[in-house]
């Protein structure tokens, strides 16, 4: 490396911006060349002179504050269009919100419907409840029987003109079930026949009305509610609900007697 080459690289060497190879070559040249060493010393002095802090132009503190405020003002101004666009996006989002709300409403409605339906007692449960209440009510003094008679030929005609059907009134006395009378009741939105049987002071209410589905002849369903037994079955033409405080076995026996009749 000659002096011309060295001068070209000296500044970069000085600034530590040369790669290792270049730096080494300049270094070797400086070691051998007093003239270039002289230039290097000058540059060191110059650097020192240029880095005099008094030459550095310092902004005033007041100016710094002013700039900071100007930037923050600019930031606030920038916020405004953003806020406008935020409203815009909100309007856009309001459509989404509407859809979301509608969807939620639909889900809620359907869900409620399902839940209510799930919670809502089935038709049979409603009737069962009505049957039980009716049975309990019938046990109140003076409520049990409209037509007190153990004679089925007295009870059965009594229903004529009071019901739109003629209820079967079987005589089960031979099986130990004494008919004590009948009355009109109201279950499942319709007037029904209530036959009252008795065994050992236990009253048995038999609610019956024409089956809606006459072909369905199901097995006996049992239910225990508030200490009462409730039986239900669909006969070929008649729906039967039986309520009593008799024990389950005896009441099933009664049901068999009634069905077998």
């Amino acid at each position, binding site marked *: 490396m000659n002096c011309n080459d060295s001068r070209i690289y000296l500044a*970069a060497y000085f600034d530590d*911006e040369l790669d290792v190879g270049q730096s080494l070559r300049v270094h070797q040249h400086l070691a051998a060349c007093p003239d270039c060493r002289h230039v290097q010393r000058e*540059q060191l002095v110059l650097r020192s002179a240029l880095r005099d802090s008094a030459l*550095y132009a*310092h*902004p005033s503190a007041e100016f710094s504050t002013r700039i900071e405020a*100007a*930037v923050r003002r600019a930031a606030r101004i920038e916020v405004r269009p953003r806020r406008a666009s935020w409203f815009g996006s909100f309007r856009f989002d309001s459509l989404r919100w509407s859809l979301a709300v509608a969807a939620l409403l639909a889900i809620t409605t359907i869900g409620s419907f399902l839940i209510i339906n799930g919670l809502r007692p089935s038709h049979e449960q409603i009737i069962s409840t009505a049957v039980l209440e009716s049975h309990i009510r019938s046990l109140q003094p003076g409520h049990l029987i409209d037509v007190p008679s153990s004679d089925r030929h007295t009870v059965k005609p009594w229903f004529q003109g009071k019901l739109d059907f003629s209820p079967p009134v079987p005589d089960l006395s031979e099986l130990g079930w004494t008919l004590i009378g009948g009355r009109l009741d109201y279950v499942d939105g319709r007037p029904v026949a209530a036959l009252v049987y008795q065994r050992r002071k236990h009253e048995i209410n038999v609610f019956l009305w024409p089956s809606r589905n006459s072909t369905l002849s199901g097995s006996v369903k049992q239910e225990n509610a508030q200490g009462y037994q409730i039986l239900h079955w669909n006969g070929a033409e008649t729906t039967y609900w039986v309520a009593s405080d008799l024990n389950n076995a005896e009441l099933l026996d009664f049901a068999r007697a009634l069905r077998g009749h």
Partner: protein
Amino acid sequence: MTSQEKLCSFEENISPHLKSAYNLAKWMTHSHEDAEDVVQEAFLRAFAAFETFRGEQGKAWLLAIVRNTALTLLKRKYNSTDMAHIEETSEDPIEPSPDPEESVIISRDREHVRHALQQLPSDFREAVILREMEGLSYKEIASTIGVPIGTVMSRLSRGRDWLTRILSNPVSSVKEEPV
């Protein structure tokens, strides 16, 4: 980036370089008022363009904007004749004849240095200021000025030579000053 995040990031990455911005602007415009105008405008430009900031070399990024703003102001402020002066600095300035053997001692007098720096053609001056006062690397200077690193190296080298020769013969270079 929310506007609050932008402001925070700006104040973290850019605002600390206000001092450098003012220094460069002052050395470019030679006027306190112009320097303040340039810096204020540059800061607003920088804030508006902050989305383009990539989180590196905040100082070089800001100083590039300061430099462009200053050049715009100078172009607006001075007529085409002065512009010719600004632009001609890419050519070789009239340098004192190199004579290392005679320039044994260069002046470190502050006012001599200041004057020499003011006399230095702007292309060389800005390279020298960015390097010596702001401590930017060649790469950062290249990105600030918008020239290749080789050009940065060349301008720095010639700028220093120029200053060295002026300061080695302060009497001739500060001829307008009463001695």
